[in-house]
């Protein structure tokens, strides 16, 4: 039986809902917001560069970075003491803070009882909730005086080493570095934890199944796998330590010199801005030099963060490798 062919009618679809331009408009608005982030960073850079130029008209860039005298009253703007202080405090912070942070990350992800995991995590994160100025307050009025005695003792005992010996002042590189260490523990720990939790279970089980103790399993399966990510985390901590301003300003003593010892006063790129900006309003070159210090700080932290984020991203998205490092053969 032949099916009667019925020509379907010309048909139209129900009208679309809402204005047709709404979607492109929304997409455009959101894309602009996203682009704004990139533009902002570029703009930061450009503006800082422009405003710091007056400083470089007086002091060449090389002299700015290597000059050892920062004496605004004599128009001397050598940022070396600032760089020195920034670096020394950051290194102390890393030396103390990173091992502790890794230890907490290890303990929380691999060793602690299940129930303790959440409370411990929250406690470590609470360290980050304390504002910088409160760390400074506590540091200068409680920590630094309390450490004076032990610092003196260590200073005298190790006075044959460089960077030790001489007088000990209450605000000094070491105390600053110590408080910085406490401040970077949360971020280094959090990222290390994230990285460690991506270790594939079968790597760990392979080690345990061979009769490894828990620590041996960590050494052989977890740590090598997380190495890149932990380095990234440490670098992020470094970036944080370098950029920290307020706690450092309170604790470092603000002496624009290259300190002779770990327990003497110093200065950092961030602290100099916090301290001197008020006075510098009148002096154009001084202001520009401070902005130059800010530019230098920006470049440093940008570079560190760019590299650190690369490592951390790679570690967090890495798929499992075939054989745990150290177990082959």
């Amino acid at each position, binding site marked *: 039986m032949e099916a009667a062919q019925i020509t379907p009618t010309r048909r139209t679809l129900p009208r679309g809902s809402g204005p047709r331009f709404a979607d492109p408009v*929304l997409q455009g608005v959101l*894309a602009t917001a996203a682009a704004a982030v990139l533009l902002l960073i570029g703009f930061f850079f450009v503006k800082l560069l422009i405003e710091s130029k007056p400083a470089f008209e007086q002091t060449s860039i090389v002299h700015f970075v290597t000059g050892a005298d920062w004496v605004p009253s004599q128009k001397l703007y050598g940022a070396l003491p600032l760089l020195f202080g920034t670096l020394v405090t950051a290194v102390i912070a890393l030396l103390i803070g990173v091992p502790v942070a890794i230890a907490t990350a290890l303990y929380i992800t691999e060793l602690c009882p299940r129930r303790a995991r959440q409370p411990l995590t929250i406690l470590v994160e609470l360290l980050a909730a304390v504002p910088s100025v409160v760390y400074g307050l506590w540091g200068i009025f409680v920590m630094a005086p309390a450490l004076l005695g032990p610092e003196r003792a260590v200073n005298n005992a190790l006075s044959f080493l460089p960077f030790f010996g001489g007088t000990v002042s209450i605000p000094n590189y070491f105390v600053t570095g110590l408080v910085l260490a406490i401040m970077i523990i949360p971020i280094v720990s959090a990222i290390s934890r994230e990285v460690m939790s991506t270790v594939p279970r079968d790597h760990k089980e392979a080690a345990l199944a061979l009769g490894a*103790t828990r620590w041996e399993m960590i050494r052989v399966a977890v740590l090598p796998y997380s190495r890149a990510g932990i380095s990234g985390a440490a670098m992020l901590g470094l970036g944080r330590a370098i950029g920290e301003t307020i706690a450092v300003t309170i604790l470092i003593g603000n002496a624009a010199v290259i300190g002779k010892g770990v327990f003497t006063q110093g200065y950092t790129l*961030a602290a100099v801005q916090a301290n001197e900006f008020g006075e510098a309003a009148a002096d154009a070159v001084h202001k520009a030099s401070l902005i130059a210090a800010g530019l230098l700080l920006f470049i440093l932290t940008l570079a560190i963060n760019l590299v650190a*984020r690369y490592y951390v991203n790679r570690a967090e998205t890495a798929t499992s490798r075939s054989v745990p490092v150290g177990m082959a053969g």
Partner: protein
Amino acid sequence: MSARPVLPVVSSRRRLTDMLARGTTLGLTLLALVPLFLIVYCLLSKGLGAWSVEFFTSDPTGSFLGDPGGIRSAIVGTLIIVALASAFAIPLGIAVALYLIEYGKRSLFSNTVRYFVDVMTGVPSIVFGLFIYIVLVATQVGGTSYAAWKGAVALALLMLPVVARSAEVVLNLVPNSLRESALALGAPRWRVIFRVVLPTARPGLITGSMLAIARAAGETAPLLFTVAFVNGISTKVTDRMNSLPLQIFNDVGQPQDRLVQRAWGAALTLVLMILILTLLARLAQRRSRLQS
């Protein structure tokens, strides 16, 4: 008769190393927490003493000899500035995250934006203050040099990457099947976003925003040369305004006992505000997790 199987012995050296390692990591973890407890203890023991009705209801007098006054203007200032900064940063941050998740996905542009948002979280807070100083304060935008709203903008810049990052994580968790169902019903994408995606993500967005607010409330450096310091209370955002972190910073520098005590009291207030915000945020997060 078969001998009883004997399991290989784990050498005592290995056992010792294992125990040592466990002990060390535990010890270091507890060590990391010591400062937290110390700070809380100091805040309570030194700060509570400063608290009084006057403390919260009077402004700093700025005088070195007489009564130093309380911190009312600082509290009010912090509330205003942080609220303003949140009003800037939270919508903008969520907008960036929306773009990355809903439209950009894996394109080169959005990967670049994502990367730099992450990088931006590492920019020192003083650089934000410096930038706003150059762009808004030195140029006297709006007729004034220092102003509360300018400080709010600096804080907003600081909050932006934090909000964007956490919002992105939350929006990514919205199951794609929900978007598909809405699209299949004939909804244009903007309706899908506003009526399905955002409401579903709302609890997480709120948590992320509250954590960003808590972070901003404690920041001093961005306010240093954008809002500057003033003793009296002010509610005009075009004026200079006091704020808790600035107040504390100022008082720390003074060699006077009463001012230092005020600093502890103010610090306790600030930490309490931040703590409450943080805990509320975490509680909201847990509740929404239990519900879903």
